[in-house]
């Protein structure tokens, strides 16, 4: 653990330094992609807290992502808030929605939990369409450049946008790293490994799981709010089932229950889908094939394979 601690700090610090260095060398197209990937990877990190570390498979995280995005966007559009308070509104929306979902869905387990989260998220998506007068439904709405200036920084500028995405990602990454070394994180892992045993050690399993849902949901909401603000668009697509499946796919591919897995999985899938959408409109085929292959052959994901074969200390 002691040697691992130093090595893991070096590894994750190195990854962050690399991402910063890429800011100066990447061509515009990939630079823009990587900014998106880092925000989406932050979403995956949020998902990983619940799925990877606590062992709860949610099929409804798009609800949290969208809660952040719409909490931010609607606060701007209808309450006229500036980007700072609007981001806070997005976080608060994510917190409230995840607490409500957690209180209800955690009364179930396993397959029922998956279906309940799926149904709540679907109800949320449909509600966005139903209240189209407020949300502009499927069409969504654009956040004007003038509204995207936070603390004097114009977030619509690609350079600033990249650095803001990196800041968010670094924050999420370091927070997970810290979390998994804390007693709270270790209890989550214990619940994933053997829930009944954790309960019989005296842990209030429900409270810990609720904490995990809220933390996971709020991080996902932060990513959603940041996505809307950085890329200037808020739309119901981000609340659809597809956006609940994506983080599952990214985390499964990258490695559930590893700190770097979400980034690796998001990076791979983003480029896979990007490349295939140049060839065919049926680009989600790639997502389907990867889901089946990972389930069949690499349930521990890419980072999990690394951990099993090379670096046992990988957190």
């Amino acid at each position, binding site marked *: 653990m002691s040697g691992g601690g130093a090595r893991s700090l070096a590894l994750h610090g190195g990854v962050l330094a690399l991402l910063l260095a890429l800011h100066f060398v990447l061509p515009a197209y990939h630079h823009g992609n990587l900014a998106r990937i880092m925000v989406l990877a932050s979403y995956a990190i949020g998902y990983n807290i619940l799925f990877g570390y606590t062992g709860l*498979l949610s*099929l409804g995280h798009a609800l949290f992502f969208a809660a952040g995005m719409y909490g931010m966007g609607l606060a701007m559009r209808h309450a006229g808030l500036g980007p700072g308070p609007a981001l806070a509104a997005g976080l608060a929306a994510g917190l409230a929605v995840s607490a409500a979902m957690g209180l*209800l*869905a955690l*009364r*179930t387990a*396993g*397959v*029922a939990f*998956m*279906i*309940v989260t799926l*149904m*709540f998220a*679907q*109800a949320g998506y*449909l*509600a966005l*369409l*139903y209240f189209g007068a407020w949300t502009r439904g499927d069409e969504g709405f654009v956040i004007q450049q003038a509204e995207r200036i936070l603390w004097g920084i114009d977030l619509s500028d690609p350079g600033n946008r990249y650095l803001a995405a990196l800041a968010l990602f670094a924050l999420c990454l370091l927070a997970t790293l810290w979390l998994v070394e804390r007693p709270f994180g270790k209890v989550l892992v214990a619940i994933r490994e053997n829930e009944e045993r954790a309960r019989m050690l005296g842990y209030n399993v429900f409270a810990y799981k609720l904490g995990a849902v809220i933390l996971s949901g709020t991080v996902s909401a932060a990513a959603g709010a940041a996505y809307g603000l950085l890329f200037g668009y808020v739309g119901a697509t981000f609340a659809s089932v597809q956006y609940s*499946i994506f983080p*599952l796919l990214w985390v*499964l591919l990258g490695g559930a229950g590893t700190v770097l897995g979400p980034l690796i999985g998001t990076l791979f899938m983003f480029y896979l889908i990007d490349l295939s959408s140049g060839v*065919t*409109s*049926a*680009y*989600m*085929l790639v*997502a*389907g*094939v*990867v*889901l*089946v*292959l990972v*389930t*069949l052959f690499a*349930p521990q994901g890419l980072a999990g394979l690394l951990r099993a074969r090379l670096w046992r200390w990988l957190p």
Partner: protein
Amino acid sequence: MEFGPHLVLATLEGAVTAAVLALTAVGLSLVFGVMRVVNVAHGEFFMLGAVLAWWVTSLIGGPPALGFAAALVVAPLLVGLLAAAADMTVLKRIDYDPERTIVATIGLLYILQQVTLMTYGADARPVEPPFNTRLAIPWVTFAEGRPQLIWPWGLGTTSYKLAVIGAAAAVLAGVWLVMTRSRIGLLMRATQLDRDMALAFGIPVERIYALVFGLGAALAALAAVLIVPISQAHYLMGGDPLLLSFIVVIIGGLGSLPGTLVAAILIGLSDGIISVFFSPTLAKILATLLVALVLVFRPQGLFGLRAA
């Protein structure tokens, strides 16, 4: 039209929905009941049934009845075989782990849907019904104190819609007979009760699983062939049947065939009636919330007594 005839019309439309829904949901319920797994790709097997029906009928040509009869046999058979193959190559290899099965069938969902998009395309295509006589329905009114038979404009159905209801009922009766009276049904029920015990008694559990998974998908495909002359075949049409089947199976009690049937009739009938009064989106919101809340507060379903 007055309220009375309107209600009759909504009920008739609802009965068609209920019939098709019952077939689809019984397929999902059968798979859950025997194999204890949730098949998220179920709606795509439904979609494949409809697309294959279009393919078969346009390939054969000739009178609509001929192509349609061929589609009734070929589409469920092909879909069933495909599903059995998916069971043996994917689900068997992950040992039917409930959570991993859901993830794998989500993958399967996208594969089936997107391959259909690449080959069949994004258009919605119609299939001609084999017969389609309009049947007007009389209504009784009281004029000057005497009952009088009138034929309200717009109140009616078609012979094909009635045939769909009849066919679904016949197939469901067949499924029930197979499950309760036949040897293969006995083997299925034994596998459902205790997989390990069934294995110990030499029941070929793996083959039963492939059969059940294929049968479940074939029922969805059959339902789609029946409905495709009324709606149309489209690569995204699998979403609604999946959602509705979920609702039916969960409300009816997971894995309980009679509960599934009752719920299908109830949901199918009320779907027609509710959509007269509410917007379809609101109806869907309420339905998804209902499913979630039933699972949270009454996991055995509204009608089932058995725990899931």
